[in-house]
């Protein structure tokens, strides 16, 4: 366990260690896949074939990479919300429900007004998605701040409620008129106007949502560490009683933290409709629509050490894993349940690898004369230890 006490503080070595640390999630992913290889062997599949299919499917071609990015968009958006919630010390596991409500509201608007210019409708729809998510996240916020109802409870319950609302809307008021006539009555809405689709970036399914999400990531970074609002959310998250003493309205900022994190999920829901499916369809479950992004986005944020900017590559990596795993399933024909189990293993390994990253970081800090809290602005510092000797 413990290594030699006296590390030589060789600068190149230290830099290497720092780089090594930041790749920790990737190593953890690889370790999880190695464990997964055992399952593959048990299932009579060749792990090497399987994993090269995974890599190929995620990053192997222009189109594969585009698919990975498409998958990463909702993960990144939900992940950004998670970063905010985490700093405000609230636990939002209602991403699934918030995505659904954001999608419902924006789809409803898109179907109600068919003659608007595309850019205008897209803007309105984004706002509607944000609004829907914000309401579905803000409500647990209000319940927590003013009625002391734990947000884990309320967000879990509200996920279930959102699914039922979606099922009702898609078979009732919002059903595709064609389906309303048909015998099968598939619970789906009509398709959005061509003009309303999010513009594509390159001739793949990759849409402009990626750019928007990346811009938002930078904005969340600025929000959290460069604005008074972010400062307040973090202060309330760390110590409510001190925040109150600092003149901060604690209840309001609890609501804000949940509301903002819900807003991002709502936008993710909108983008799934306007950027990918162009209509809403339900199979009766939340996952059918969200693809589990409400949960996986939390994981992506963790991959990104709950830092909005690192969450960008983290979402892409995680998106690639999900896309690649599906492709692996197709090529080596293993049951898809294996993919779910692997997904779980990766999450567990990555979240555990944080320990090793922290430990090695701490060790480094002890020998470099700076305290890097992972937060801006970075500063040099004088070691007291040196001064004392």
């Amino acid at each position, binding site marked *: 366990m413990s290594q030699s006490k006296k590390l030589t503080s060789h600068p190149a070595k230290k830099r290497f260690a720092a780089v090594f640390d930041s790749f920790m999630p990737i190593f953890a992913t690889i370790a999880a896949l190695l464990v997964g290889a055992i399952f593959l062997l048990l299932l009579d599949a060749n792990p090497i074939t399987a994993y090269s299919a995974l890599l190929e499917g995620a990053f192997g071609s222009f189109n594969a990479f585009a698919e990975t990015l498409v998958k990463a968009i909702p993960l990144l958006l939900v992940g950004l919300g998670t970063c905010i919630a985490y700093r405000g010390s609230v636990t939002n596991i209602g991403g699934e429900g918030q995505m659904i409500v954001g999608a419902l509201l924006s789809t409803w608007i898109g179907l109600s007004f068919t003659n608007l210019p595309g850019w205008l409708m897209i803007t309105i729809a984004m706002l509607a998605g944000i609004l829907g998510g914000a309401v579905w996240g803000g409500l647990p916020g209000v319940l927590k701040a003013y009625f002391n109802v*734990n947000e*884990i409870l309320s967000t879990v*319950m*509200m996920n279930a409620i959102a699914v039922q609302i979606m099922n*009702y809307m898609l078979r009732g008021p919002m059903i595709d008129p064609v389906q309303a006539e048909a015998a099968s009555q598939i619970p789906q809405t009509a398709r959005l106007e061509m003009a309303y689709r999010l513009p594509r970036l390159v001739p793949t399914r990759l849409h402009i949502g990626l750019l928007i999400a990346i811009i938002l990531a930078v904005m969340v970074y600025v929000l959290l560490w460069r604005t008074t609002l972010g400062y307040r959310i973090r202060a309330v998250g760390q110590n409510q009683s001190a925040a109150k003493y600092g003149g901060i309205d604690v209840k309001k900022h609890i609501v804000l933290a949940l509301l903002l994190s819900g807003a991002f999920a709502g936008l993710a829901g909108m983008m799934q409709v306007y950027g990918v499916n162009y209509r809403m369809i339900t199979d009766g479950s939340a996952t059918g629509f969200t693809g589990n992004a409400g949960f996986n986005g*939390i994981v992506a944020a963790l991959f990104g050490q709950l830092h909005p900017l690192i969450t960008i590559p983290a979402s892409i990596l995680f998106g690639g894993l999900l896309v690649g795993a599906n492709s692996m399933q197709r090529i080596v024909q293993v*049951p898809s*349940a294996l993919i*779910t189990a692997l997904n779980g293993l990766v999450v567990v390994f990555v979240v555990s690898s944080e320990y090793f990253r922290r430990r090695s970081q701490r060790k480094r800090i002890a020998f470099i004369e700076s305290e890097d809290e992972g937060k801006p602005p970075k500063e040099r510092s004088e070691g007291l230890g040196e001064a004392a000797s």
Partner: protein
Amino acid sequence: MIKDLFTATVIIGIISSGIRLATPYLYAAIGEMFGQRSGVLNLGVEGQMLLGAFVAYFVVLRTESLLLAILAAIGVGALMGLAMGFVTIQLQATQGIAGIGFYLFGMGMSNLLFQKLIGVVENIDGFSAIKIPLLGDIPVIGEIFFRQNLLVYLAFLLVPLAWFVLNKTTLGLKIRAVGENPEAADSLGVNVALVRYFTVTLGGILSSIAGASLSVALLNVFQQNMTAGQGFIAVALVYFGSWRPFGILAGALLFSMVNALQLWIQVLGIPIPSELAVMLPYILTILVLTLSLTKGKGPSALTKAFEREG
């Protein structure tokens, strides 16, 4: 139509459905409560339930032994709990996320094993109803309360037992102290990690039994994803019950009975959309908690990893 709901048949039906539906919640939520009281939030309950449900079912299918089935479920639950413990206690991983990881793993694994080892569902002979002598003969009440299967009785006995362990034993004292102020407990030589390992493992075992109660006692089948979110509801019920066994009992019964009620609403043809009926238990649970005046404060060290510094 609404007044049809106030007949004896319906009320008896709701109570007895409620008791059955509450059974898995009780196991899972009481297990989760122990973990949380010591400071560990486990969101992986759903995955543990699914694995427990599968393993118990599989063992009955192959051996027809209910005892072995429960032992196997206990074993699997303990393993999952220990793994969760290792990750969150030893490696100090963020608890919420680790739990989601174990949820996905348990769900995927149970599905995979089912597909590979069984494939096609069959009915099994699980725990059958036991009529408690005398009590079981009381009209109405006997039927509701005293003609259930063993795992149902045990679930309800678990509630006072959990209360007793938590409040009257040295172990319970350690659990409460560790969840509230691990530094203080540590400074008195309480092994914080060990206590947490114990509660998380116990939580895993109880979640696994919760799953088994579905597959080998209440339903006698296994189906992929058969828990359908019950593990998450169980976690929510711990908050509803303010981390107290009897509070959890109240929450589990409320949720389950409203769920039974919504089925009756549909059966009696009361004209509301079926989706609204399905939503009812979720809405009412939030509402009741919102309007209730006394809400406990959670254990202060909940979700906080403990590490002695320096």
